[in-house]
C-alpha cells in the first residue's frame, strides 16, 4: 500500500537521532509550558519558534509539534493538582481531576490523564494516517449549519442525561450564553453589554478567566468554608507500585477513552472547533453514557479520562485541516502554519503531493512524540504529587498567586484579575445554592461559536430555519440532540407519574 510505504519513509525521517532528540526536548518543554497556568501551547510555540531555525525544516516542525503535544499533556497537571486549568484545553479536566486530588487520589488522576492523553494521541494519529484524505473532504462539508448543530449537541449532552437539576443546568447555560455575548458583535462589530463603559469588556469575557475564577478562587473559598480553615492534609504519596496499580485500574475506562479519542479527533478536524470544545463535549458525552452520572463532578476517573483523551486527539485532528487545506484548526496550528510558510512549504491541497517526505515525517513523529510524552509525564508524577503535601495555608497562597498570575499574564490587564475575583466570589455563592458550574464554562466556550454559526446559517438561508434539518449532516446531529434532550424528560414523566412536575 502507498500509505504504508509513505509512513515507513516517514519513520526513516522521524527516527533519526536528531529528530528523536528534538522530540524529547520538545515534549519535555511542552509539558512544563502546559502545566504553567497562563502559559499555554500558543505562547510556548511562539517563544520557541526562533530556536527551530538552527535545525532543518523537518526537525523544526517536528519540534514544534512535540511542544504542542507536550503542552496538551501538561495542561492536566495544574488542573488536577491546583484546580486551575493549566491551559484552556484542560478546563474540563478540572471538573473531576480536582475533586479526585482532594480525595487523595491525585496520583491516580495524573496517571489517568497521562494514559488517556497517550491513548487519545495514538488513536488519533492512527485515524490521521488512514483517513487524512477523505477527512479533508469531510471537514469541507461542515458549513455553518453543521457547526451550529454540533454545538447544540454539546449542550444537550450537558442538559439531557445529567444527574443535576435540569432547570438549574439550563439556567447556568443561559447565563453563560449571556456572558458570551459581552464585547464586540462578531458580525457587525458593534459593542454589546459593555458594563460601566469599562474598556476591558470590549474584548468580551474570556472563559479562561471565568474558569480560573470559578475553579481557582471559588474552590479555595469553598474549601476554607467547608473545613472551617483546618482541612485534612492530603495524604498524597506515590510509588512505583501505585503507578502500576493506577494503570491497571484504568482498564475499565477503555470505552470512555476510545470514545473521547474518536470524538476529539473528529471535532479537532473541524476548522472552527479545536481542542477546548472537543474536551468539553467528550466530558458531556462520558457523563451521558455513564451508569452513574451523579458521580461526575465529584471525582469520577472517567471525567478525567474523557477530556484528556479528547484534547490530545483534537490536537492531532487540528493538524489535518492545516496540512490539507491550509486552514488551522487552533491558534497553535496557526503558528505552525506560519513556520511552514517561512520554510517555503505551502500548506494546502498540494502539500501531500508535492512534499510527501515532509508530511509523513511529521505524521510519524507524532507517534514518537506520544511515546516520549507519556514516559516523561509518568516519570515526573511523583514529583508533582509531592508538591501537594505542602501545608494548607501555603498551598492556598500558591493557588491564589497562580490564579492572579495566570489570569494577568495572557493580556496583562488588571481588568482580568478583578474579573477573576468577581467570578470567584460569584461561583462560591452559586455553589452554595447548588448551581452546577460546568455548564456555565461550557456555554461561555461554545457561545461565540454557536451565535456565529447560527447567524451565518440564517443569513445564508435568508431566514429559513429548515436549513438545519434538511442538510444530511446537520439534520442527523439535530435529530440526535432532540432525542438526547427528550429522553430524560420522558423517563422522568413516566417514573414520577402525574403528581410531580418533571424537573
Amino acid at each position, binding site marked *: 500500500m502507498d500509505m504504508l510505504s509513505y509512513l515507513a519513509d516517514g519513520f526513516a525521517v522521524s527516527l533519526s537521532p536528531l529528530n528523536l532528540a528534538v522530540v524529547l526536548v520538545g515534549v519535555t518543554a511542552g509539558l512544563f509550558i502546559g502545566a504553567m497556568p497562563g502559559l499555554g501551547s500558543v505562547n510556548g510555540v*511562539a517563544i520557541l519558534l526562533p530556536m527551530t531555525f538552527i535545525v532543518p525544516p523537518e526537525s523544526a516542525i517536528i519540534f514544534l509539534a512535540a511542544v504542542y503535544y507536550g503542552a496538551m499533556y501538561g495542561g492536566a497537571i495544574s488542573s488536577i493538582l491546583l484546580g486551575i486549568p493549566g491551559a484552556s484545553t484542560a478546563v474540563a479536566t478540572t471538573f473531576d481531576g480536582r475533586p479526585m486530588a482532594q480525595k487523595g487520589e491525585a496520583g491516580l488522576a495524573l496517571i489517568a490523564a497521562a494514559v488517556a492523553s497517550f491513548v487519545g494521541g495514538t488513536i488519533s494519529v492512527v485515524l490521521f494516517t488512514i483517513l487524512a484524505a477523505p477527512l479533508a473532504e469531510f471537514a469541507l462539508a461542515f458549513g455553518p449549519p453543521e457547526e451550529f448543530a454540533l454545538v447544540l449537541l454539546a449542550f444537550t449532552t450537558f442538559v439531557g442525561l445529567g444527574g443535576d437539576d435540569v432547570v438549574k443546568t439550563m439556567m447556568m447555560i443561559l447565563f453563560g450564553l449571556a456572558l458570551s455575548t459581552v464585547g464586540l458583535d*462578531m*458580525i*457587525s462589530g*458593534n459593542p454589546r453589554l459593555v458594563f460601566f463603559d469599562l474598556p476591558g469588556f470590549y474584548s468580551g469575557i474570556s472563559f479562561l478567566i471565568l474558569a480560573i475564577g470559578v475553579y481557582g478562587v471559588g474552590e479555595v473559598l469553598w474549601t476554607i468554608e467547608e473545613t472551617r480553615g483546618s482541612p485534612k492534609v492530603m495524604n498524597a504519596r506515590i510509588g512505583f507500585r501505585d503507578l502500576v496499580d493506577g494503570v491497571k485500574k484504568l482498564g475499565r475506562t477503555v470505552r470512555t477513552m476510545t470514545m473521547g479519542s474518536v470524538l476529539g479527533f473528529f471535532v479537532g478536524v473541524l476548522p472552527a472547533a479545536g481542542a477546548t470544545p472537543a474536551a468539553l463535549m467528550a466530558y458531556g458525552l462520558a457523563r451521558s453514557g455513564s451508569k452513574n452520572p451523579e458521580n461526575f463532578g465529584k471525582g469520577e476517573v472517567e471525567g478525567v479520562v474523557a477530556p484528556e483523551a479528547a484534547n490530545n486527539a483534537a490536537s492531532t485532528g487540528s493538524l489535518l485541516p492545516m496540512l490539507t487545506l*491550509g486552514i488551522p484548526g487552533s491558534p497553535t496550528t496557526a503558528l505552525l502554519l506560519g513556520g511552514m510558510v*517561512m520554510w517555503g512549504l505551502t500548506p494546502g491541497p498540494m502539500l501531500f503531493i508535492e512534499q510527501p517526505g515532509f508530511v509523513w515525517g511529521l505524521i510519524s513523529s507524532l507517534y514518537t512524540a506520544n511515546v516520549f510524552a507519556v514516559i516523561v509525564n509518568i516519570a515526573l508524577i511523583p514529583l508533582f504529587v509531592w508538591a501537594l503535601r505542602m501545608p494548607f495555608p501555603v498551598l492556598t497562597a500558591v493557588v491564589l498567586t497562580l490564579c492572579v498570575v495566570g489570569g494577568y499574564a495572557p493580556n496583562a490587564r488588571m481588568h482580568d484579575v478583578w474579573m477573576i475575583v468577581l467570578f470567584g466570589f460569584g461561583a462560591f455563592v452559586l455553589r452554595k445554592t447548588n448551581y452546577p458550574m460546568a455548564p456555565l464554562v461550557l456555554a461561555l466556550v461554545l457561545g461565540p461559536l454557536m451565535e456565529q454559526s447560527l447567524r451565518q446559517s440564517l443569513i445564508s438561508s435568508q431566514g429559513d430555519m429548515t436549513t438545519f434539518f434538511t442538510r444530511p449532516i446537520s439534520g442527523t446531529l439535530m435529530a440526535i440532540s432532540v432525542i438526547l434532550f427528550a429522553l430524560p424528560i420522558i423517563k422522568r414523566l413516566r417514573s414520577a407519574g402525574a403528581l410531580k412536575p418533571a424537573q
Partner: protein
Amino acid sequence: MTKMISRRMALGGVAAAATAASFGLRPAMAADWRPVKPIEMVIMGGQGGGADRLARLFQSIIQKNDLSPMPILPVNKGGGSGAEALRYLKDKQGDPHVIMATLNSYYTTPLRTDIGVDIAEFTPIARMAQDTFALWVRTDSGITSLEQYVEAVRAAGGSWKMGGTGTGQEDSLLTAMLEQEFGLKYVYVPFNGGGDVAKALVGGHIDSTVNNPSEALSFAQADRVTPLGAFTAERIPAMPDVPTMRELGHDLTYEMQRSFVAPGGLSSEQTAFYQTMMGKLAEIPEWKEYAAKNALVTDLLMGEELQAYFLGEREKHAKLLASLGA
C-alpha cells in the same frame, strides 16, 4: 468615477526609497529603545486569512533573522470586521510592546461602528505591501467566464451567496461594487477570516468569493476553484492567464494595504525601533519571494507619508461607503 481607488505606486516607491535611505543613516538612534518583553502582534483578521498568513510570515522572518531581541506573539482579533483589534489597540495606548497588522477595515470599521476609535491617534509604522483581489467560483460550478457568472447570479434571483469577512470589509465593498456595476443582488455571508471564506467556497457553503490570491491560489492549483477576473490595473503576475476586470470592460479596481501600526503615545525612539525592524524586513529575500508568489505588490511607506496616506484613504473610504450604501 469613485469606483476606482487610485494608488500611489510611483509616489510610494519614491517615498520608500527615501525612507530606507534615511534609516541607513541613523542606526544608533534605533538602539536607544529596545523591547524588554515579548511583542504582541495583533492581527485584524481570523486564522488562515491573508492578513493572518502574512503576519505569521513576518513573525517567522523577524525571529529567524534576529530583527527583534524579543519574540513576537501573533494574536488574532478578527471579530466584528476588525473592531475587536482596533479597540484593543486603543486600550493599549502608550504600550510599546504591541503592534498591529492592518487591512483596509482599518479605515472602514471605525467609520461604520461606534467603537470610539480614531485611527489618527495610532502610530503608523510601515506599509509593507498592497494586496490584490480576484473573483473566484468553484470549478465544478462550470462557470469559466465573467458573462456566465453574471448570468448565473442573475438567474439565482437574489439568493446567490457571496462570502466575505464582514460588513464594511474590503470584500463587502467589492461585492457592493459588483452589485452596482452589473445590477446584481447577493446574499453576503460574513466569516471570521479569508481562510474560512476560501474553505466555505470549496465546501459549497457559498457560491463565490472575492478572496485575495494568497487565500485561494492553493485551491486553484488543486483545481477546486477558478478565478474569473482580477480587480487590478495590470494582470497579477502569479496568475498571468486571468484577465483583469478592465480588460473585460469593467473599470473595477481595488487593492488593500498590508501595514503595521502601533498604539498612540509612543516615543520617537520606540517608533524608530519598529520602523528599522520593518525596513530591514522589507529587504529580506524570503519576504520578496513570498510576495511575488502570492501576488502582493511590495511598496514600502513609512512615517509621515504613511499617516497622510492612511488619512487620505480614510476619506476615500468614507465616500465609497456612502456611495455604495455598504
